[in-house]
């Protein structure tokens, strides 16, 4: 049901994001999806990577602030209106979306979700026969 996401604290400094990416590249860690939330002072880099544990270890070794969080995923069909339909289901259950991003992997389209109520979200996914992906699916 859930996959692991890296969260890295980014200070608002030129070249800082690339310092993080360079560490991942050096250790041959593939970035599958990435998004950055930003404020005027700092940001949080969120990434799905090929080896989260190793990424955590190597980034920490380079003094970055990093943690791993479990997040929800839903596989989408490549049909217009799919994502809107999924978000409708969450809204109907009175679940608030905190952030969302999407990416393609092979032929799949995948939605990553963070909501204010994890248990209720899992119920919605199950009740509507939505398909989640596992980390194994991302290791082809």
């Amino acid at each position, binding site marked *: 049901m859930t996959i692991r996401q890296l969260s890295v*604290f980014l200070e608002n400094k030129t070249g800082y994001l690339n310092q993080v990416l360079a560490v991942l590249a050096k250790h041959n860690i593939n970035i599958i999806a990435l998004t950055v939330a930003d*404020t005027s002072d*700092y940001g949080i880099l969120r990434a799905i990577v090929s080896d989260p544990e190793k990424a955590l270890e190597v980034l920490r070794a380079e003094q970055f602030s990093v943690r791993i969080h479990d*997040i929800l995923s839903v596989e989408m069909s490549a049909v217009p209106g799919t994502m809107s339909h999924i978000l409708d289901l969450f809204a109907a259950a009175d679940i608030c979306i905190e952030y969302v991003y999407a990416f393609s992997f092979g032929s799949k389209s995948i939605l990553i979700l963070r909501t204010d109520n994890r248990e209720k979200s899992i119920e919605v996914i199950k009740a509507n026969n939505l398909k989640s992906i596992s980390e194994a699916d991302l290791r082809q």
Partner: protein
Amino acid sequence: MNDESRLKRQEARGIKKSSRLLAIELNAGLKNNIAVTKQKLFWNKKTECMNRKDMRAIQSERLIKLVQHVYNNVPFYRKRMNDVGVKPSDILSIDDIVKLPFTYKTDLRDNYPFNLFAVPMREIVRVHASSGTTGKPTTVGYTKTDIENWKEVVARCLTMAGVGKEDIMQISYGYGLFTGGLGVHYGAEAVGCSVIPISGGNTRRQLQLMSDFGSTVLACTPSYALHLADALSENGYSLKDMKLTTGIFGAEPWTENMRLELEKKWGIRAHDIYGLSEIMGPGVATDCVHHCGLHVHEDHFFPEIVHPDTNKPLADGAEGELVFTTLTKEGIPLLRYNTHDLSTLNHEPCKCGRTSVRMKKITGRSDDMLIIRGVNLFPSQIEHVLLELGETSAHYLLYVDRQNNLDTLELKVELDESKLTDTIRDLQNLSRKIEHALNSAIGLHVKVTLVEPKTIPRSEGKAVRVVDNRRNS
């Protein structure tokens, strides 16, 4: 003659003719047998112009009485004097003051709230407090006599600055636990000013009342006076709308350049009123129209300058820590209280006729205390709040700046990795929580910025906790 030449000088400097100067002109007129009201130049001429020998005699008499009183009534002082082996009988004149132990801010904190008071609470008619270093405020208590003496010294300061019955005085120091507002207030009423107790803040209303009421005197911190000057035009006013002639500025250190800037911006004479709540509040000293040091009301507050490292008394002209003994205070008398303000003393008589000792405008401090908008702040207070919250590391850097002439504080604090989440909101809530805790502990708004762990430089010696970017004007 003196008055006339001063008048000419000030006119030459382009200073607007104040009611005080008018009074001096009229005074000159009086010599030519024109009947006019006379502006007071001294509030208490007998004391302010007393010869040095008589002043020493008064100080000696008061010190002897003070030492006996605190030795018998304040366990803290009895112990401290016993510790250094001094008995009240060893104090025979003011010269013996050097035998007495020092008092520090930590002593007030350790004896919070009332343990340093030298009279029963029923004799205390007022309590003031300032924010303390570990969450506890520093408390001071006043008897009826103390309040009277406070009024007296503030009245002397105001008269020295040319303020009198004809003046309308806008007091924009904070009223309340802070000594600024109420301290100046009673002295201003005593000299007969029409007092506008507007208190601090609300710039627009300050300017409106200043214009509508025709305030001639403004009492506030120098930085707020600059802020008000700069806010004139954006609030639709110009100097022509104002009748201000005099500024009574204090509660934070300010330079001679700042005085000149304020005088130019407002077209006024600006005077420095020095004080600290531990000793009394505003009114310990002020500068006369010659601005050559601040006249200390030494019949109430005996000043010494001591070497910061050795605590040895220093001669006139040598810079060191300013130390005060409260010669007349009943509520909370203090022996040799070290203010940590850096200054020098000068016992030469002044051109104004006063013989009282003058202290140089405060140029800095020997400890790390900051004065932010008139509020005393020690970096350790920030540390205390952070440690108490336990949400971040205690590694921080405090940036002090001045924007639109108002002091601003920004705290950069290292994020604790365990508090890192994947949403910005959690981090913002954390910053807000720290801001709120700081605000309630120190009474100042601090902008909190989270930074990455281990990015604030560690130092092996004295940690650098503060970056003060306020210009040294």
